[in-house]
């Protein structure tokens, strides 16, 4: 009887400690709430179908900020960081939306009052309480999902339907995802998808100096309890024999 109780106590302790270790708040995550000079954003770009070759990486570093805007350099990550655009006057536009305190109202983009995105900024299209995992960290996000019709002036191009889902990080206002699904009604040459996803940033991430998610004290306690339980169980079994 005593042996059985010992066994079940050990199992219960093991399970509860394991659950506690898993459910314990992740450690080793760092987070900055503000985009500032020196902030780096690296995006991966993936195109499919007609945009299968439009898949080079984008790298940005912020060189200047003011109340409403961030400015910086843009380089290509896949070709030895070829500088695509330089200068403090290049606004990072929707890549960084600064000082947004209320995502329910329209964000300030390029000091403009009209754009198809802003026209669709309502409760039907905006989800202000989304979440997503970016660079191994779960972030609260804001997303907008809408469809526009776009025309190309070239002969034979016609009108395409473009469904856009744009997602920003709630706290810092940086773009984390831009998904475009383009459909041409008759010509498959112009149908495809193109998406930009934040791959690396200096704004948040996991610090390399600690093991995330598994606090060492709890792990040691669990191991010690397990060993004690096994020893007690063995002793009891021997006594019974």
């Amino acid at each position, binding site marked *: 009887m005593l042996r059985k109780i010992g066994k079940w106590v050990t199992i219960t302790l093991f399970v509860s400690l394991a659950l506690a270790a898993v459910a314990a708040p992740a450690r080793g995550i760092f987070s900055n709430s503000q985009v500032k000079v020196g902030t780096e954003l690296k995006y991966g770009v993936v195109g499919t179908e007609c945009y299968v070759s439009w898949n080079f990486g984008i790298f940005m570093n912020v060189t200047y900020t003011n109340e409403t805007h961030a400015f910086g350099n843009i380089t290509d990550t896949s070709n030895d960081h070829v500088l*695509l655009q330089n200068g403090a006057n290049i606004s990072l536009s929707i890549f960084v939306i600064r000082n947004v305190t209320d995502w329910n109202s329209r964000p300030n983009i390029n000091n403009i009052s009209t754009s198809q995105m802003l026209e669709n900024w309502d409760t039907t299209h905006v989800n202000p309480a989304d979440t997503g995992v970016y660079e191994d960290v779960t972030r609260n996000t804001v997303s907008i999902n809408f469809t526009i019709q776009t025309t190309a002036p070239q002969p034979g*191009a016609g009108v395409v339907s473009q469904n856009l889902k744009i997602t920003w990080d709630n706290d810092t206002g940086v773009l984390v995802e831009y998904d475009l699904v383009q459909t041409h009604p008759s010509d498959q040459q112009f149908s495809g998808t193109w998406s930009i996803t934040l791959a690396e940033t200096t704004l948040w991430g996991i610090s390399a100096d600690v093991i995330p998610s598994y606090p060492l004290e709890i792990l040691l306690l669990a191991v010690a309890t397990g060993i004690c339980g096994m020893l007690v169980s063995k002793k009891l079994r021997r006594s019974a024999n």
Partner: protein
Amino acid sequence: MSHQQRWSKAIVAGIIAMFALQTISIIKPASATRPTTPTNLLIFSWGTTTPVLTSLGLDKVGNGEGAAFNYTVDTIITNDTIAAKFPLIAWETIDVVVVDCFLPKESAELEILMSYLNGTAGKKGLLFFGGNYSHFVSDAIITQFSEVLPADFVANRDIKNTYLNSSWANITGGDPLLMGVYTNYSAGLIKEYNIVDNQVEVSINPVLDTDPNFLFKVPRIAWGSCPLLKERIQTYSPRNSSTDKTVVEVPSTKEPLIIMRDSSYKGRIMFISPGTFIQNKTWDQNKLDEWNKAFALWPYFNYMMYLMARWLDLSVDPTTIESYAEWPYSPIPHFWDAVGWMVFVGSLWVFNFVLFFKLGRASRKRTAAAAAKAAGRPEGAPEIKPEGAEPTIPPKPDVKVEEKPLPEGPDKGPTPG
């Protein structure tokens, strides 16, 4: 000849017969009753010993009665022979043109070829393989020929960029600068005729996979077993939504790898962007020009060639094209192979049973003879016993076990307690 010798000879004869049957079934040529008329091929090839020619040669007229393909040395055109052979082509006899990494170099000759493919002069089938065409012909020739292909492999960069930039401008309210810089830069890196070599998986177009009349799927070709592919011509999409369809694609990017065109006024075309071109030269950054070796060694590759070439021939009813199981050159046991194996296995069972009972009977006879000898009867004389009596088992001679006293000495056994 004794009874035993007769049995031995019968067993040896049986074994020889079984192996003979099996051998006949293995070396048996293609059936003479294949319900086909040959497809006449015209082949533009980068060499005379290529994986494509080897594959088409399996089912070639001359290899067996009722073969599927008819082509001769006169209808294989290479870089060395095009000047002499092209003017002599008997176009009216050709059913399917195979283009494997080589094309006519002169624009006028190319136009003649194209006229037989685009419906102007004829509706010949076209089986087009990807490859490094730049080895033999100019980019202008490739671009010209791309007009007949069902694939968009010269990307319309300007229109695609306009769509991307316009959508960005619509979002930002009229500032396409940022995205324009990026997309123009990206498009500038794309070549007109682009060879890529990243490793990709292969999967069948899921829409066509559900079509019961679609030929190029299981059970004819199991695309799931296709090896990873690498070298290929970059393709973006089928060109015409109504006639051109992606057969096989890269599942993650939807990049078409094989595109088919089934047009009533232009004929049929199969475009295969990953070819099997092998040239011991380098084409870019010292990479060996060896295209998709594993693809040509894939067990379905030869059948794929057969199936496509036969489908491209408009005179062939697609429903009569042999399946992978029926095609005599597929690497599986066919009907007569299966019959041979079944007979062989069945014969082995019979042989084993006969041998088992025969040896059992011989063993019983030896036991009976030994018993008779022990009873004093002459060897071979029948045992006399009353009718209906059970066979007697000779009594075992009494063996007395002599009881020996245990040796004296110290007791080395375990001591209880």
